[in-house]
């Protein structure tokens, strides 16, 4: 029986409610650090990369050789700056808007796994939850634009809302394809399904997923308001769009929300298409065999997986920065036409294509490699139909859910993830709720 964190704490003499609170706080603090430090690093990275693109150096002096403390200095300046509320503004909404925007972009991180078991809340509907919460971020922007009271911010807010709402459609379509290929919406399972060599990644699964990956990137960039789609703060026309009137800490919250959701979109892309925490060459799982050995080795393998994921999503963010500093901005109606006339049809065509591919050419990935969980995708699909169809289901419910390979409770192992029993393959467990220990 795994010793959960709560038992550890209570055995150390802490009162039970305090232990629960601490257990809940651990993932939150870690995720806040990821988003905050991520924003800090990416703002510095953006200035460096844009400098390189424009044949100049970017910050070099603040805090050491490459000016890496520049963003911290900006942060402190922003905190020290006065938070002005314009006269005509609707004070209450004006103050709440940045927090709504930041909360939405931060909450989506709750469901993002960094390694098997390393996720805030290993939800069964993780992808759906992330998309739902991503949609909330547009509220912060609409309220900001509206409450600032100025004509310009209203323009910015209207454009932004129209764009983000219309880009959720193709985004949803693109995300559905990896979901039905892996048969589940649980990000950890999707990640685990891409174990093994790079050829096992979903992007190489079939030509349609490859094409839909690029459609996803375009829609992701558009729904996060970056690069050629950053209509909201089109300087030349609308001064600075919805956050013209903001200053100081409130403005930095919008900035953090933007970088947080930028990292989120690219992390989702990595998990869904680019083999989440698996490196191109599976050193840890097959080469050294650490992932399945428990204890410290399993922990190190998960750590390497987490580094893998963060590295890949940072590369995604760098590509977004690179695109931003080279391409001019699209007009609002061109943004809408790209969404409705190019992204949606393309995404739906790839959806049908992937569906057809999945139905007629299952299991193209080389069988030689140990498919994840010892069950290959075909088995999972049959289980859907056969189990539903009649009592003689071959694969029990429990097997469907992801096994945590490493039994040792890592700090992030969440209490809410029940201790899944690892049934011997093939044993039929009764249908319905599996017994909790």
């Amino acid at each position, binding site marked *: 029986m795994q010793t959960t964190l709560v038992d550890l704490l209570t055995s150390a003499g802490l009162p039970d409610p305090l232990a629960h609170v601490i257990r809940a706080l651990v993932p939150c603090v870690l995720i806040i650090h990821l988003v905050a430090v991520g924003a800090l690093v990416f703002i510095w990275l953006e200035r460096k990369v*844009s400098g390189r*693109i*424009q*044949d*100049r150096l970017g910050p070099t002096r603040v805090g050491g050789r490459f000016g890496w403390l520049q963003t911290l200095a900006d942060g402190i300046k922003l905190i020290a700056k006065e938070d002005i509320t314009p006269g005509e503004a609707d004070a209450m909404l004006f103050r709440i808007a940045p927090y709504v925007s930041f909360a939405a972009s931060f909450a989506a991180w709750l469901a993002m796994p960094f390694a098997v078991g390393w996720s805030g809340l290993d939800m069964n509907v993780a992808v759906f939850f992330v998309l739902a919460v991503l949609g909330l971020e547009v509220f912060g922007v609409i309220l900001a634009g509206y409450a600032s009271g100025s*004509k310009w911010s209203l*323009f910015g807010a*209207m454009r932004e809302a129209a764009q983000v709402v219309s880009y959720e459609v193709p985004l949803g379509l693109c995300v559905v394809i990896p979901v039905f290929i892996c048969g589940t919406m649980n990000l950890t399972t999707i990640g685990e399904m891409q174990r093994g060599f790079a050829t096992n990644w979903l992007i190489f699964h079939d030509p349609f997923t490859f094409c839909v990956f690029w459609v996803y990137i375009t829609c992701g960039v558009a729904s996060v308001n970056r690069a*050629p789609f*950053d209509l909201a703060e*089109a*300087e*030349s*026309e609308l*001064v600075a769009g919805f956050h013209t009137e903001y200053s100081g800490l409130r403005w930095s919250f919008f900035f953090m929300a933007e970088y947080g959701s930028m990292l989120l979109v690219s992390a989702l892309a990595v998990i869904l298409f680019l083999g989440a925490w698996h490196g191109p060459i599976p050193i840890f799982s097959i080469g050294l065999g650490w992932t399945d050995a428990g204890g410290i080795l399993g922990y190190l393998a998960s750590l390497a997986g987490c580094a893998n994921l963060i590295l890949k999503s940072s590369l995604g963010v760098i590509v977004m920065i690179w695109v931003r*500093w*080279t*391409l*001019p*901005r*699209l*007009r*609002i*109606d*061109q943004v809408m036409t790209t969404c409705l006339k190019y992204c949606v049809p393309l995404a739906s065509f790839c959806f049908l294509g992937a569906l057809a591919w999945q139905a007629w050419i299952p299991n193209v990935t080389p069988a030689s490699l140990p498919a994840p969980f010892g069950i290959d995708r075909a088995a999972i699909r049959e289980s859907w139909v056969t189990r539903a169809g009649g009592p003689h289901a071959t694969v029990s419910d429990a097997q469907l859910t992801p096994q945590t390979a490493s039994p040792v409770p890592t700090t992030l192992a969440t209490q809410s993830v029940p201790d899944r029993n690892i049934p011997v393959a093939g044993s039929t467990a009764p249908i319905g709720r599996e017994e909790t220990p």
Partner: protein
Amino acid sequence: MAASVADQRVIEFDVRTDEMLVNMGPQHPSTHGVLRLVLRTDGEVVSEVEPHLGYLHRCAEKIGENLTPRQWVPYTDRMDYLAGMNMNLGWALCVEKLLDHNLSDKAKHLRVIIAEMGRIASHLVGMGAYGLDLGTFSPFLYAFREREKILDLFEEACGARLTYSYLTPGGATADLPEGWLDKCSAFLDQFEPVIQEYHALLTTNSIFIKRTANIGVMDAEMVTDYGCTGPVLRGSGVDHDLRRDGEEIYTEMYENYAFEVVVQKDGHYPRDHTYPPVPKEAVLGDCWHRFYVRMLEVVQAIDLVRQAIERYRSADGDWGIPIKLTQKLPKGEVYLETEAPRGQMGFYLVSDGNSIPRRVRARSSCFCNLSVTSDVCRGALLADVPAIVGSLDVVMGEIDR
């Protein structure tokens, strides 16, 4: 629980979108200067554009009525502050035409070198600023990196980087220093391949084409009717360039130079350099063509400077000693236009016999180019207005004088 809105009749069934008077304030100060556009729009479609001028009005013409021509030279290069040299050249030629003062060949070739280098610098700013208007920041910095090298060369020649007062009536204030010509041709050699980068960055960039092709289209008749000149005129296919069909005193500077006017004649541009082809969406007279004419004029200017450098080396005579500060002007009047980077810059000098002229008038090219905005931007989208005004490449210093 029916909430009673102030008056039921106010909200008619058909939701009436009332037009907003939106004030698109001063664009980036570094590029267009203090231009204010009042737009009447109902959200996205602009139904009326009204440019407001006069923020940079210094009444240089009134001051011209109290100074001798040579003293007024510094006022001319503060008009189009991005192409100071070409403004000085225009005023110098105007005074020389009145005085009937002809220059040695060497002075003429010196003026061609300086004027065409000024054109390159000015077009670089025009290109970079246009990128800014469309939202991309990098071309601006690439453009200024090259422009800085030209400003260094000008600083060596006349000591100033923006307001030169170098070409004065009678010639130039100083000869070109030693080794200046070699540095200049070295700059040109390394600059020519860089232009391909700008083409890749902007001209052939599909989003740039989407934002500029077939937008702000002006046919030849409308362009001449509004008095637009320079790249705006040639962008609409009118074959008119004062370096070839200008005044006698101006065209003899460019005599037996091999150069073709950059204008699209029956479908294609003069083609002795590798240029990107015209995209199929681009219509003659739209923003893209105006931008493309400027880019080709930079290449044309490079050729002119190279020819001028050889001629300057072998030419004889002095570099043009300026006329006396209080030179007596004959009674009479003279009007002369030169091909400045942004259009035809005209100077009108009326004198009644003493050294201070009776009236000095500067005809600004951007003044007429800007006057076309209210007609072109009617019905355009909000995001197209900066694209159209950016393609006219106006400088407020010259418009407001």
